[in-house]
């Protein structure tokens, strides 16, 4: 089945992974800016990274017929450095007209600190001023519940932000309901260990329905599996769910959400 991965970090993946994803039906992906595995030393390092995301990765994906989109920001981990963060935020507009940019992301919280919150608010302001969509990273493990609620507080306090243009990622059983009830999109991130599994994501689909809900693989530096969405497709099939339901989660919903960015063009997917 053709699908879209709305959150996958291809800079940490090999070209062979692009080929495998294409073989498994991936027709498009979106790659939010994130941590490099180490803290970067200067704004120039981020400028180079944004060139990688807007110039090199789309070419690498195109070799396998995959359309590559991206989101720009300084991630929550490095947002602890407020002065560097402000330099990066001031530089981001240079890249907002690149043809594969969908918006600002993944912004969010990591350890839910004051500095992270300060920089989160400044990113939200940037998105509002440039009419950009937003992709949100919610913290992991014991920080997720607190951090998700703090993020929702900050988003709803800015009247310029349209909730239907914000995707809150890494939702789990204790955060999904509030995200959906407040009118945001929600993304479930599938991990092989310690976090959400394909089976638990299927449970959340069965409980909360398919409106404004997507799934992604993250493909980050920790143990993660870039082919996690095909695993979810298999799990939903095994439980007897219809092709229409699966397609809505893995293809139509990402298209509907991304279509609110002027740069997104829906790929031609097999029905």
């Amino acid at each position, binding site marked *: 089945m053709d699908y879209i991965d709305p959150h996958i970090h291809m800079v940490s993946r090999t070209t062979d992974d692009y080929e495998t994803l294409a073989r498994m039906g991936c027709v498009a992906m979106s790659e939010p800016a994130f941590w490099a595995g180490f803290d970067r030393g200067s704004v120039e390092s981020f400028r180079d990274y944004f060139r990688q995301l807007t110039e090199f990765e789309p070419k690498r994906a195109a070799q396998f017929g995959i359309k590559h989109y991206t989101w720009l920001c300084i991630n929550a981990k490095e947002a602890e450095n407020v002065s560097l963060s402000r330099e990066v935020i001031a530089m981001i507009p240079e890249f907002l007209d690149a043809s594969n940019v969908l918006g600002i992301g993944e912004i969010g919280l990591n350890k*839910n600190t*004051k500095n992270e*919150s*300060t920089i989160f*608010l400044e990113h939200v302001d940037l998105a509002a001023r440039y009419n950009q969509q937003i992709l949100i990273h919610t913290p992991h*493990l*014991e*920080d*997720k*519940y*607190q951090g998700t*609620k*703090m993020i929702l*507080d*900050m988003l709803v306090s800015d009247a310029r932000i349209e909730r239907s243009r914000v995707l809150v990622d890494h939702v*789990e*059983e*204790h955060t999904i*309901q509030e995200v959906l009830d407040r009118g945001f999109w929600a993304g479930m991130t599938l991990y092989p260990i310690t976090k959400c599994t394909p089976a*638990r994501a299927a*449970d959340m*689909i*069965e*409980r*909360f*329905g*398919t409106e404004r809900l997507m799934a992604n693989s993250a493909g980050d530096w920790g143990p993660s599996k870039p082919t996690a969405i095909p695993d979810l497709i298999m799990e939903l099939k*095994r*439980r*007897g*769910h*219809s092709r*229409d*339901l699966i397609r809505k989660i893995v293809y139509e919903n990402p298209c509907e959400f991304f279509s609110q960015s002027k740069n997104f063009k829906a790929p031609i997917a097999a029905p």
Partner: protein
Amino acid sequence: MSQDPKLPARSAEKVLSEEFFIARSKILDLAATLDRLERADGSLEALHQLKLLEQGMEILLDDQSDKAKRVQLLMSRPYDPDWRKNYGLH
């Protein structure tokens, strides 16, 4: 939470028969982990985490629903609605 009308319902018997061996193996993993803990020397931090695991296992055995969400909340730092004021962020 209302059910999406497009969702097929698996019967309890079907869910149990399909999930039994997976659940069985997870219980064994947990049992072996507890055995491993018992054989090792403990530290204070480990004891605090052990308490959380024990409370989590109590949730599995009680008669209330929403077990995954309740285990998640048990393992979560609390949320303070006044956080923004405490941080001096307006």
